[in-house]
């Protein structure tokens, strides 16, 4: 992911360098023009001087600097020349400035016809020296900028960092915000541009938490709305039972239907309530044996109605968990065992510790679960084939889904095996034990 700071610093630095370069180029161009004019004027003056030379002297020994040369011609005859100059005319005999090559260099030339003496004066100067001068001028002007680029970069870095401080603070606060904290962002003294962002975030947070609150309320409302009419149905059924033949199939169907509806609503609500946030909130040291004791005491009438034997064995074991979720789990396991076990069967619940695990076993003397089905029974809305003699109480196929959900919340493993009885299944839940 690219950083805004790096982008800004690189961008600003590149722009600065580019403009400096363009300015330097422009400076070079104008320096060159200036130099051209200056040197041409000097060449002109030099030509005038040469024209006044006494041509009878031998000037070939005249030690001019390396960059100057001259020739004086009269009617095709070389009258005088400087040390460097060739023996042929440097350039065509024509008034004005021109360029020519000799002695391994490029030269700027100036040719002048002295009408009084009918002589041609040619002067020349090496062009490369002009470039050197112009380059020197430009270099002198851009060198300080070139050298200060690292310093400028550092300054820009500091300024950009300072300017981004409110953004960094905001991002730190957002990063450190707890998943469940939907309160507004508290970062203060922000820049105007960030105020807008913070307002938007806060607005979004508020809408989100309202939405979640509505959802929670909806679940509580739904519970009330659905449970009360189901209660009414059950009470009416109870009243009706005194008036009509309760052995009839229609009656049985009706009773089962109400039972099933109640069961489905309860399980759906339970599944909804078991979200990990709630679990973390309610999790505490819990005695699994006591949980089983309570659930069995509450559910005993159901087991008793089916004339089944139910016993709890084992010892008090502590785990870290949510008592309400665990009660739902044990209740579903026992309810399930009772439902799939024929009347006068036997159920056994065991709680014991094995090393650093606490094991909850729920065993029954029912028909057991075939190997092939054992993986699928935890799927939502899965129904096992109802065995002969099993209870009439219909399930909704969510009971074991809730069991595996609660197990998952408690970091527990669920295993299905054979019971200690001649037939039947065993649900074994292994929890991490609480360190004492």
């Amino acid at each position, binding site marked *: 992911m690219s950083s805004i700071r790096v982008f800004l610093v690189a961008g600003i630095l590149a722009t600065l360098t580019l403009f400096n370069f363009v300015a330097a180029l422009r400076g070079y161009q104008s320096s060159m023009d200036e130099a051209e004019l200056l040197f041409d004027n000097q060449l002109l003056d030099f030509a005038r001087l040469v024209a006044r030379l006494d041509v009878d002297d031998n000037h070939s020994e005249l030690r001019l600097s390396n960059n100057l040369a001259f020739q004086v011609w009269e009617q095709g005859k070389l009258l005088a020349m400087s040390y460097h100059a060739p023996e042929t005319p440097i350039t065509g005999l024509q008034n004005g400035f021109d360029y020519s090559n000799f002695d391994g260099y490029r030269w700027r030339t100036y040719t002048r016809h002295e009408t009084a003496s009918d002589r041609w004066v040619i002067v020349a100067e090496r062009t490369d020296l002009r470039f050197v001068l112009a380059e020197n001028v430009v270099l002198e002007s851009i060198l300080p900028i070139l050298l200060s680029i690292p310093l400028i970069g550092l300054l820009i870095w500091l300024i950009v960092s300072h300017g981004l401080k409110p953004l960094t603070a905001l991002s730190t606060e957002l990063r450190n915000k707890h998943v469940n904290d939907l309160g507004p962002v508290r970062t203060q003294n922000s820049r105007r541009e960030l105020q807008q962002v913070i307002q938007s975030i806060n607005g979004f947070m508020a809408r989100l938490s309202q939405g979640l609150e509505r959802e929670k309320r909806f679940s*509580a409302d739904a*519970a*009330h709305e659905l*449970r*009360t*009419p*189901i*209660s*009414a*149905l*059950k*009470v*009416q059924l*109870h*009243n009706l039972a*005194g008036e009509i033949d309760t052995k009839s199939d229609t009656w049985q169907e009706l009773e089962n239907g109400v039972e099933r509806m*109640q069961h489905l609503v309860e399980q759906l609500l339970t599944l909804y*309530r078991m979200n990990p946030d709630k679990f973390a909130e*309610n999790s505490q040291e819990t005695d699994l044996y*006591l949980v*089983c*004791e*309570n659930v*069995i*005491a*509450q559910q*005993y*009438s159901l087991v008793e109605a089916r004339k089944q034997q*139910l*016993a*709890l*064995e*084992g010892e008090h074991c502590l785990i870290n968990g949510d*008592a*309400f979720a665990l009660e739902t789990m044990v209740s579903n396991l026992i309810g399930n065992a009772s439902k799939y076990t024929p009347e006068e069967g036997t159920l056994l*619940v065991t709680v014991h510790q094995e090393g650093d695990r606490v094991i909850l076993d729920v065993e029954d003397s029912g028909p057991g679960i075939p190997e092939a089905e054992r993986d699928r029974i935890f799927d939502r809305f899965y129904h096992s084939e109802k065995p002969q003699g099993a209870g009439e109480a219909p399930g909704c196929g969510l009971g074991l889904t809730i069991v595996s959900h609660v197990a998952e919340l408690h970091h527990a493993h669920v295993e299905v095996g054979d019971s200690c009885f001649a037939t039947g299944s065993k649900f074994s839940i292994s929890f991490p034990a609480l360190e004492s």
Partner: protein
Amino acid sequence: MQILLVEDDQPLARGLQQALGQQGYVVNHVGTGEAALHVIEFDRPDVVILDIGLPDIDGITVLEKATAKDKELPVLMLTARDGVDDKVAGLDSGADDYLVKPFEMTELLARLRVLERRISSTKSNDITIGNVCLDTVAQTVTVDGQDIDLARREYMLLKSLMENAGRVQTRSALETRLYTWGEEVSSNAVEVHIHRLRKKLGNEFIRTIRGVGYKINQEANS
């Protein structure tokens, strides 16, 4: 026994009125918390069945107001909510018991009988189940009219079980009721007392739910 039913859902209220009427209870029904408080003040019922979700005042507020004036008023809460917090809130405000909707009618009747016994024990002093009769004032127990001798803890244990006849009492719950906090409890204290009670009352009267607790059936020995 006169019951005040506070429930805003009409079909449920009518059904309950009929069902409880069949059991010989006199049921008055109101649909709001305001009306409930009025009735409680001017025509005190023996038992109040109070729904938590009422249209005007929250059921828990009704409970707090009613029990602030009359601490002895037996209240059975009906709640469509659950979760540990709601239950604790209801009980801390002075409710004697609660039932989560949708409840079994038999369960409601059992709870009412427990409350009834509690009221009658302050009025007529005895609880009778089968051939066993327990006098809560004289703290005596008779079997088939014959006085039997019980130690204090045996009596308390029997009273606890008979008051809650029809419901399983867990061993942990019985232990906490028998021994005050900090007293040494041997791990099999409850078993020992139950064993002695059985010698005096017969083996069938108290049922064991192995590993869980004990229970006296509503119609024991029948």
